């Protein structure tokens, strides 16, 4: 009977969390984590290719640095777009016009 009431309490709390919208926070957080992982992976690939090519040809380092910054900023734009969507999903921080 104690076990039964524990189970009932647990199920009630679970229903509260899911139906009360508490999982939104979990979704937003996991979303941002995945987005950051993707962005970090992409930018690390850019950086490794850039560093390797600078090592091969140091006199082109200016061009390579420019290309690296530009493409890293583009990927970061996409990542922050995902972060903004997660922020809107969470509902606490909204882009006020």
């Amino acid at each position, binding site marked *: 009977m104690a076990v039964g009431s524990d189970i009932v309490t647990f199920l009630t709390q679970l229903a509260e969390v899911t139906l009360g919208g508490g999982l939104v926070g979990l979704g937003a957080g996991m979303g941002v984590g995945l987005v950051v992982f993707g962005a970090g992976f992409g930018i690390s690939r850019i950086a490794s290719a850039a560093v390797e090519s600078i090592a091969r040809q140091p006199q082109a380092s200016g061009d390579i640095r420019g290309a690296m910054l530009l493409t890293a*900023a583009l990927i970061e734009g996409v990542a922050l777009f995902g972060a903004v969507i997660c922020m809107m999903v969470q*509902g606490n921080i*909204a*882009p*006020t*016009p």
Partner: protein
Amino acid sequence: MPAPIPATATARALGRRVLAASIAACVLAFVFSVAARSQEHGRETTPPAEPGHAAPSAQGEAAGAGHEAQGHAEEGHGDPLSHVAHNPIYVPISIGGLDLHISKAVVMMWIAAGILLILLGLVGASANGAGLVPRGFRNCVESIVVFLRDQVVYPQLGHHNGDKYLPLFLTFFFFILVANLAGMVPGAATATAKVSVTAALASLTLATMILGGMKEQGAGAFWKNLVPHGVPWWLWPLMFVIEIVGLIAKPFALTIRLFANMTAGHIVLAVLLGFTVVAKTFLMGLLIVPASVLGAVAISCLEIFVAFLQAYIFTFLSAVFIGLCLHPEH
């Protein structure tokens, strides 16, 4: 050796056109904030009360309740995050039912435009006395302008169109740069961290893409040339829709990129500094506060770099998109 900017009436004309374009950007941003606000009915724009034009208001109220409960462990002055999203209205102006209030973001845009007016106006006015070798602040501005002209605008638009559209790109770069940097001052807000401001700037890009492309290729030919050659007739409507979506998506990405970079940077800064209010005892404060403040300083340096980079990215991508619309490669 890059060609120097001629110290003649051309420089003053350039300055005048930069001024006109920056005023146009401010006006458009005003208009966009009007359009967004006319969909909501709130007065003071705090994040719990106004969830933005996408989220439904029911979620906003629930989020408002949750927001109060799970703020950053403070009781007095409000959440550190609230000052990032908080946009206090100073002068509520309503013209014919249209809500044209003057908020902090609007004032920050005016400040940015005023700084540009004074600084760049002085630089342009000094064209009279300057020889071929620029000195001082004029040297700094001229090196940026020459870099944008030779590395960004001329490669994308060619010489003739580049000279015609150069004031627009210079305005983009300097206005976004000054607006971003002005947000780093304590107590000031970042104008470009509002969606309406970045949407206004991106809509300038979109308007130049469409109108410039129509002027360059002819009104009907521009829309026809959106779809590449060699597409079979039965595929043409679908390709046209795809190209129209692509046309809209590019400035949309410009909007979101600039807005999200500025907002995210300030939110990180606010969260890092917000850790200081978590400390309840002096010993905890001794441990938490130095780490928090040093982290905030490092993030502020990164924010300054991001301000420059995002201004350059916006200008460069605008040049690429406008160049693509003026002269599509087949």
